[in-house]
């Protein structure tokens, strides 16, 4: 099938990697700039996702399943992290009734 756009039929691997870089940096920017603790947490997830994309792209490149497995483990760890992290956020909110990262800077109330 002919595409109307001047595009290669197949995508070079580097495109996936560049996409991954963009997503990672966006996540990092959000992590640094946002104040809401939940949004910060979501930015971490975004960075993990970007890394996963790299893993799977290399897995395809090397024709080996290992990259997929790494991504799988990352997801499992992310699930565990989300469970604990959200529980922490709930507790923090219960004790301080705020979600601003800056206001949760002290260890004690």
């Amino acid at each position, binding site marked *: 099938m002919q595409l109307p756009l001047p595009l290669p039929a197949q995508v070079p691997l580097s495109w996936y990697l560049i996409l991954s870089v963009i997503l990672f940096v966006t996540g990092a920017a959000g992590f640094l700039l946002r104040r809401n603790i939940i949004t910060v947490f979501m930015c971490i997830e975004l960075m993990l996702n970007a890394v996963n994309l790299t893993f799977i792209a290399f897995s395809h490149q090397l024709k080996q399943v290992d990259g997929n497995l790494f991504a799988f483990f990352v997801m499992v760890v992310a699930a565990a992290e989300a469970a604990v992290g959200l529980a922490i956020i709930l507790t923090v909110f*219960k004790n301080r*009734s705020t979600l601003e990262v800056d206001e949760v800077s002290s260890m004690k109330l």
Partner: protein
Amino acid sequence: MSDPGLTAQLEPVETAPGSTRKMVLNMGPQHPSTHGVLRILLELDGEIITKAQPDIGFLHTGIEKQAEALGWQQVVTLTDRMDYLANLSNNLAYVLPVERLLGLEIPAKAQWLRVLLCELSRINSHAVWLGTHALDLGAMTVFFYCFREREDILRLFEMFSGQRLMTSYIRIGGVALEPPRGWHAAISKFASGLSDKIDEYEDLLTKNPIFLQRTQGVGHLSLERLLDLGVTGPMIRAAGLAWDIRKSEPYSSYEKFDFDIPTCTESDVFSRFRVRVDEMRQSLRIVNQALEGMPEGPWKADAPKVVLPDREKMKTQMEALIYHFKIVTEGFRVPAGDAYVPVESPRGEIGFFVASDGTSKPLRVFMRTPSFGNLQSLTPLFEGRLIADSIASLGSMDFVLGDVDR
């Protein structure tokens, strides 16, 4: 009834650190399971109610005030409109104290007819209660089954009085009309099939594990607390006290009927369900006895100054015509004094405190309605419990808002 500012009267929602935030939910006056226009302000901690404040009066129509402007007999029509599910009990509860003040002697047939129809209306009321209560708990089918019986009973009422809902059939001095032809067969036919139909409801609910989980142990209040709050009727009997005004202070020849007072001791929603279903069976017993032993004789009292004469007599006898004219234009006078006769309505003790100053209009008609008393148990039944449970308890109280607000 209060203006919207009532919300502000709840304590301010605490937002201090260490406390979870509470939500104020305005349940009603338009809500599917408040059974009318009841408004409840709930303060919620998650799904648990920490504070409940009922707000009534949305259906207040000033019946007590209207009664003071109407003649004695005319007030009967107002009583139908309070508790529209048990209108015959209301009629009876109004008529009895007036007859006591008048010193009227009611013939046996009228008394038995009153009992028969009151018990039918008790079955009707409990059927509607059962249906709506089951609907609240999500069992939709029971609702339609119950309304099948209600339909039959309403047809019987229509047969007697020409009206389905606002029958006004029980009047001072007897009943409004002569029983229609074929009434005995019609009621017998209905009564013979009812027992199976009550079994049908029980098949759907009594052993259903989800229904049991939703109702057993839910909405418990101790007997002392219930009595203290002025609760009457099936709720008291479900708490273990065998107190039924039909037995303890018999009226309208209830002492001649043989029936039991069903009781339970758990005082939860399920026991209230059990008591009401058993009461339907007991009512059926009374209906059957009334059908069998219906005495012959006149169906209204021999009191020409109070009771309208027969149409036939009115057109042939001068004296009857004069009485008819006097009663219709002026009404009748009731000796000064006051009286209160309690009656066991499907919801509990209904009684009219009737005071007369000797004129043809009441001085004061106070309606001690069961729903008003029962609804006072709402706050203790709600607080500290789950919303879903509160729906079950609310249903188990079986109130009619028309009866509460009057």
